[in-house]
């Protein structure tokens, strides 16, 4: 027997939702870390903090819950563009040992990432075609994964090499994974349950910049001494690849007011192939160099201050994480809807990049000497130890009038790297993040115009120095701060 009236029911749902979000937040704060997943797709979904699996009522359902398409009464197309700004800060603490060292990094100085407002366009169309009866079909293009950040953090110390400069933006990544998704959805139990399945063709484009410090192959002083003991190797790689993925969902109408959505995303590994350039900035040890009588000797090369460049084809595996989500939506009134989402992403799948370099020529002079050639041609890897993450979102939608909808949301997203193993500036994920979202939708006849924004606040993170067996540093130690701003403009039309 029901003991609550309608008002009590609403308040009860709000209380339960708030407690659930609080519980997930507490769990999030105590567990693991998030990665390079896109912040979302669609003005409604993003403005509601991503709490959209139980709603999924527009063309962006292809991303959040394909099963939602089955309940769409109109055909629809839509496009949007998100403008993203990573506003990060890193105060390096890159030192060898406890001594006050000039390593070339801007230790103790707050450095900002390269300014860039990133554009992230998305589009899709859904409709009922005279194929397989009431099946709704959709075609969409969006980016499920996206990361773009660049840093300028290093110049060689004068004592290391006072004649050459490091290339700009030594640390950076521009990773775009675009999904071309073909989706089908239909009701299984009319008015009660629907299923949807999207088949994705994934295109990955990767530009990766990195700076590694390689232990010198030389065995005598001064080559083995600081600052010559570790030689900077600049990696620039540019490649792409294709892969497949699946995105499936189920929508279940609990009652007239409540929907339950369950989703799964299964992207498969993508092999990225392309070209890599390696630049080794050699030490300049002037007097040692001048003592060498043979300018083609290995000893001369490692004191010469030269730049040794090498171009190679490369191949690396992009291991994208699967994710599972569940969402609940509830119409509190005819005008007001609340939604709660949870997502579990298997970020432990991603273990960084291992750039396997093709064999071949390219070395000349002393660099080709068998005693050191492998130093210049070794594969380059960036190893991370990420954990699976939980994201929770709470969103609300209020129809102010037939022409105007107000949206708001809050999200909590764990960081992918709680152990901070191999933490690098390419993926500044400092821990449990809070997302604050809001937006407006203007409905003009068959047109929907949207404006939304997101601010994601990251906790400050100090990454301590961890040394590898050869004395080089694992990851990049320092103090990280990060805030992300995003603005979304969208337009859609029902037909």
């Amino acid at each position, binding site marked *: 027997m029901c003991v609550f009236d309608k008002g009590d029911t609403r308040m009860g749902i709000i209380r339960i939702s708030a407690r659930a979000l609080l519980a997930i937040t507490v769990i999030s704060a105590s567990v693991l870390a998030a990665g390079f997943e896109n912040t979302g797709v669609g003005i409604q979904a993003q403005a509601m903090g991503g709490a959209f699996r139980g709603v999924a009522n527009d063309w962006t359902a292809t991303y959040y819950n394909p099963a939602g398409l089955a309940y769409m009464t109109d055909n629809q197309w839509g496009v949007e563009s998100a403008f993203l700004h990573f506003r990060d800060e890193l105060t390096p603490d890159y030192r060898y040992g*406890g001594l*006050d060292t*000039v390593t070339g990094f801007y230790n103790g100085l707050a*450095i*900002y990432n390269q300014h860039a407002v990133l554009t992230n366009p998305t589009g899709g169309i859904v409709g009922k075609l005279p194929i397989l009866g009431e099946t709704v079909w959709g075609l969409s293009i969006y980016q499920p994964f996206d990361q773009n950040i660049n840093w*300028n953090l290093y110049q060689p110390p004068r004592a290391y090499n006072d004649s050459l400069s490091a290339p700009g933006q030594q640390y950076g990544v521009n990773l775009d994974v675009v999904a071309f998704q073909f989706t089908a959805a239909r009701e299984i139990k009319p008015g009660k349950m629907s299923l949807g399945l999207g088949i994705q063709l994934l295109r990955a484009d990767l530009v990766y910049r990195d700076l590694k410090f390689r232990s010198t192959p030389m065995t005598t*002083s001064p080559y083995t*001494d600081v600052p010559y003991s570790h030689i900077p190797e600049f990696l620039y790689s540019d490649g792409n690849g294709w892969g497949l993925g699946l995105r499936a969902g189920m929508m279940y109408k609990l009652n007239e007011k409540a929907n339950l959505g369950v989703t799964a995303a299964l992207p498969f590994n993508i092999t990225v192939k392309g070209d890599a350039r390696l630049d080794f900035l050699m030490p300049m040890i002037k007097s*040692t160099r001048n003592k060498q009588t043979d300018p083609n000797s290995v000893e001369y090369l490692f004191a010469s201050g030269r730049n040794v460049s090498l171009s190679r084809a490369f191949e690396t595996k992009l291991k994208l994480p699967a994710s599972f989500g569940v969402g609940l939506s509830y119409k509190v009134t005819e005008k007001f809807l609340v939604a709660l989402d949870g997502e579990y992403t298997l970020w432990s799948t991603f273990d960084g990049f291992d750039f396997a370099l093709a064999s071949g020529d390219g070395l000349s002079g002393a660099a080709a000497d068998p005693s050191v050639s492998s130093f210049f041609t070794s594969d380059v890897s960036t190893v991370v130890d990420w954990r699976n993450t939980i994201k929770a979102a709470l969103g609300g939608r209020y129809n102010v009038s037939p022409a105007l909808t107000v949206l708001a949301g809050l999200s909590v997203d764990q960081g992918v790297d709680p152990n901070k193993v191999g933490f690098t500036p390419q993926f500044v994920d400092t821990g449990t993040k809070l997302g604050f979202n809001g937006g407006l939708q203007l409905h003009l006849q068959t047109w929907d115009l949207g404006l939304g924004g997101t601010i994601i606040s990251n906790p400050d993170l100090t990454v301590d120095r961890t040394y590898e067996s050869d004395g080089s540093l694992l990851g990049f130690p320092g103090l990280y701060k990060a805030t992300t701003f995003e603005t979304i403009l969208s337009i859609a039309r029902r037909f």
Partner: protein
Amino acid sequence: MRYSKYVIIAGAFLTLLSAGCSDRGTNVPTLSGRSSWTVWPDFNHVFVPAPVNATDTLNPSQLLMQIRNPACLLEMAAYIPHPDYVPIPEEYRNKPLPLLVLLAPQDADKWFYFDHGLAEIAYDLISKGTIRPMIIVTVGNEKVFGGTFYGNSDPAGHMDDIMGDLLVNKLVDSLRFVASWADVSSDPQEHGIGGVGMGAYGAYRAALKHPGIYKSISAADGPLDFDGSTSNGGLIQLIPQVFAEQGLRTDTTWDYVANHFDTMRTLRLSRMFVGGSLAFSPHDTQMTVSVTIAANQRRLYILSRQQWADSATLVSGLLMGQDIGGPIGSADVHWGFHMPFNADGSVNAATWSRWMSNNLDSLMVQAGPSALQGVSMWFATSPQAEYGYHDMTESWISTLRTAGHSPTVLEYSGTPGHPATGSAYTYNLIREMLVFHSSAFGN
């Protein structure tokens, strides 16, 4: 205007987001000029009295008889900040510059500190105002055997004669002739000395042999107490390693040991003992020579030589000196020396006592209690230092403290996989040394 408030909200929202997208720049410091035109690198000096006439006779003096050093050169390099290239603070412009002498460790030459970033570090610290502008003269170690402890003997060179006021006065007087802008301070308070490894020993030896010349000493792990903290450690505990390095057993005869001893460059411990033997226990204890100049060439003639009678630890015939020869029949240029151990690897008391008379604590007793009075002292030491130098350094620090001195001590370690052995972190230590000396020089 029913939507005006929403338009206002949207406008405020966009304004907030656009503010979050403003360009902050990167905060990366602007690169300054990367020229290192701040150094006068080569400043070798001849250290031997010139003969008065063709039949001049004198005892071997300074570097006259140093092995394989026919030019009698003390090889030096100098960092001299040029006011046009180094941003010297106004208060120090047109004023004499303090002098710091840095002694190279074993197997290192005058470029050792430059090879570890001295010029660039000095430029960096001076230009930032962290240290006073100063002249830094780097002295190379003996070249043939990788170093002779900056000791005092015919084959090692009479460094005790050089490393005091003779050197400082020569630098004060003559540096301006090689670098016109160089003006070395003659104030002893602004004279410092330092070194790494064997150079650290040399720095203290110079200060003890010449009290009052250097008012600040910096030293990083070296053979600062020959018998270590236990009186049975230090260099003594290295003797088995010397045998192992040479591939020698301890059940042979001394002749076998002497005839199979090698001084190749990779045998660093053995070279250290050979260098020490040439400095502290040479076979020739006193030599009289004559010097002539003929056809622009110096000719040396050995007139007489006194040699240590002991033969139990003598290594002879291994080392060839300079080609002196001559008609007097004393042309035996083979330098003999006595090792401080016996054929079975045990310490030879007689030779060891000659070494110990050169130990720093002995030199301090010889110099008297006031020798290091008013001298600022700085040490860097690491438990990872090679050859047990950490223990020897700690022992010497303890001796100094017992004598009432208060040296500053920096204890440090390397990183995993890159321990603080040899000169692995000299680059870092140079920075600390310069800061210390600058502070000791005062304003």
